[in-house]
């Protein structure tokens, strides 16, 4: 159970300022991210000021081909790097002169920061814990309040901030999550989601079967291979109403891949219906075509359901250009708009945690250090979205 301290008073910026600064720490999976975000108060001339990214750095734990990242090793990676990354983020962030009221731009100081935001869940337990530990430590050292953030909300809020999408249907696709989300009555409601594994997980595990590198990311390498795929191999297609399921597809395509690599096997599975030999590239291509079609289909259903024509894609798999292209075809057909961000904001990062955390902080929501426990299971619709209207 996630507990917050909700104050009736809205916190004011530090004396003589019209802006807030937050540092965000993210480490729910194999990426450790630190970001520093600046949000201005609205003024007469700019009623909705854009947030400013002062710094957005990330370090990814990469495993050898054929291996996934284990919680213990990932947590060790985060512990090793978190101090260096925080220090670097402070050095790299520049506070513009017109903000600080000083003569020159200067690096940000600890005192400039209003709150420390951290990922409270969902994610892998051990990596989450090591980052929470760091957040608590700097909170005590710097005497700044903590704000726990739901990872999914971070993605959504950052996507909205960067793209300017007002009220989109959100497709959140990453290594650990697959959800179609729409906002209604101060909650981000889940319209459809995966019933078993996430899209990214499916792609990552298939990359392991094919033994392709994990750098820069398994999904990216599959995307590149898929560009050379020519034959479409039929795979299971499992959309169940608004939800989807991917474990069966993975098992099926893994089996096909093993047949192909097994020289002795004379299985018919090695050939397409037209008699051509199936290549790993064909499998990557077919896997992408199939699971992305499923994603686009449930997104379209959600759009028809809530009667909106905006779509926002967030999460690591959202970088995939083929997914963006398919989504665009669907959205253009419905005379709608598609919003997607680039890899610096799609892939897990600290700045999105700072953004979502700052939004709650400005509504008077903070996390007491006693309740700053993290949780592996933290649903998107559990969070009360105080900063948006009905």
């Amino acid at each position, binding site marked *: 159970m996630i507990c917050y301290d909700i104050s009736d008073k809205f916190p004011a910026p530090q004396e003589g300022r019209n802006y807030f600064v937050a540092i965000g720490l993210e480490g729910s999976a194999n990426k450790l991210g630190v970001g520093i975000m600046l949000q201005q108060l609205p003024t007469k001339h700019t009623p909705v000021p854009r947030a400013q990214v002062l710094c957005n750095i990330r370090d990814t734990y990469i495993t050898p081909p054929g291996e996934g990242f284990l919680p213990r090793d990932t947590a060790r990676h985060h512990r090793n790097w978190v101090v260096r990354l925080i220090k670097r983020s402070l050095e790299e962030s520049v506070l513009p002169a017109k903000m600080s009221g000083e003569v020159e731009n200067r690096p940000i100081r600890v005192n400039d920061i209003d709150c420390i935001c951290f990922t409270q869940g969902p994610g892998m337990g051990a990596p989450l814990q090591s980052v929470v530990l760091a957040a608590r430590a700097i909170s005590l050292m710097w005497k700044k309040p903590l704000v726990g953030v739901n990872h999914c909300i971070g993605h959504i809020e950052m996507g909205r901030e960067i793209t300017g999408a007002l009220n989109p249907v959100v497709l959140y696709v990453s290594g650990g999550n697959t959800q179609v989300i729409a906002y209604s009555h101060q909650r981000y409601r889940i319209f459809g*989601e995966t019933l078993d594994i996430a899209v990214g997980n499916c792609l990552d595990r298939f990359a392991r079967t094919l033994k392709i590198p994990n750098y820069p990311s398994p999904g990216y390498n599959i995307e590149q291979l898929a560009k050379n795929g020519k034959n479409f191999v039929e795979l299971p297609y499992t959309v169940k*109403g608004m939800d989807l399921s991917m474990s069966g597809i993975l098992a099926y395509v893994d089996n096909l891949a093993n047949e192909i690599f097994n020289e002795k096997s004379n299985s018919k599975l090695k050939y397409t219906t037209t008699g051509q030999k199936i290549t790993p590239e064909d499998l990557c291509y077919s896997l992408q075509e199939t699971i992305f079609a499923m994603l686009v289909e449930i997104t379209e259903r959600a759009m028809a359901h809530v009667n909106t024509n905006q779509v926002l894609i967030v999460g690591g798999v959202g970088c995939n250009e083929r997914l963006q292209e398919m989504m665009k075809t669907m959205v253009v057909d419905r005379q709608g708009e598609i919003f997607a961000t680039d890899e610096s904001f799609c892939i897990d990062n600290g700045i999105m945690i700072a953004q979502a955390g700052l939004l709650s902080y400005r509504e008077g929501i903070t996390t007491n250090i006693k309740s700053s426990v993290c949780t592996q299971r933290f649903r998107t619709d559990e969070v009360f979205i105080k900063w948006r209207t009905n």
Partner: protein
Amino acid sequence: MAENIIKQAHAYTANIPLALISQGAEALVFTSPVHPYLPSPPTCAPDYILKYRPPKPYRHPVLDAQLTKHRTLSEARLLHKLALLDIPAPRVIHVNPKHGLLWMNNVAGPHGFSVKQWVWDIELATAPNSALRESVMKANMLQIGALIAKLHLNDIVHGDLTTSNIMIRPKMAAADASVPVPPHNILNPNLEPVLIDFGLGSHSALAEDKAVDIYVLERAVESTHPVNSETYKTWLLDGYVQEYERGGKGGKIRIKEVLRKLDEVRQRGRKRSMVG
């Protein structure tokens, strides 16, 4: 975009008159006076319904063809099964799986309307808490509940129960020539519900799936008829339970299981629980 798709639909149906009545994410629904086999109609009444699943340009053509064929066929099979079971639902007249066309009779008839519209109309036409409203509404809500129970007792789940996917029509027996049915008489005491749109329907014997079906309907009632949703939900569930209980001891055991699951589903929502 819609014009293009309508053009395709015309091309596959030899340019018969088609009137678009609804457009969802997956399919378009038209009415038409033309029957695929019978000679040209004497009247222009929109007696037939055409459901058209257009090709989706974002999908790989092979995948798209396979899905359209599979879904059109499975919906037709389900509707055929319902016809055999004598559950009021559209009857299939013609299927063209390759082009995703499903030709059905207009089951609600010229004087039918969706339950959604019907409830809205009654809420406008009658005073709140009036005996008239209660009697008409209760009788029909119980019937709807019983109809869903009939479906579930035959191990079929609808998959997308909303008040717009249930139609209401004058009872066929009462609609004989000697008693002319006034058009759009919402207070007609002889109404009966009909289920439509089995696009997400499936066979399932699991109490969980049936509970989810009811839960989806409850949520739909809450969002479309917010003022009296609690009463409506009670009536619907009463009708559902009564139909099961009519099945004697076996029915009572099954309904207990479904209700237990329904409580679970209500607690966690339609979604899998992530508490733990």
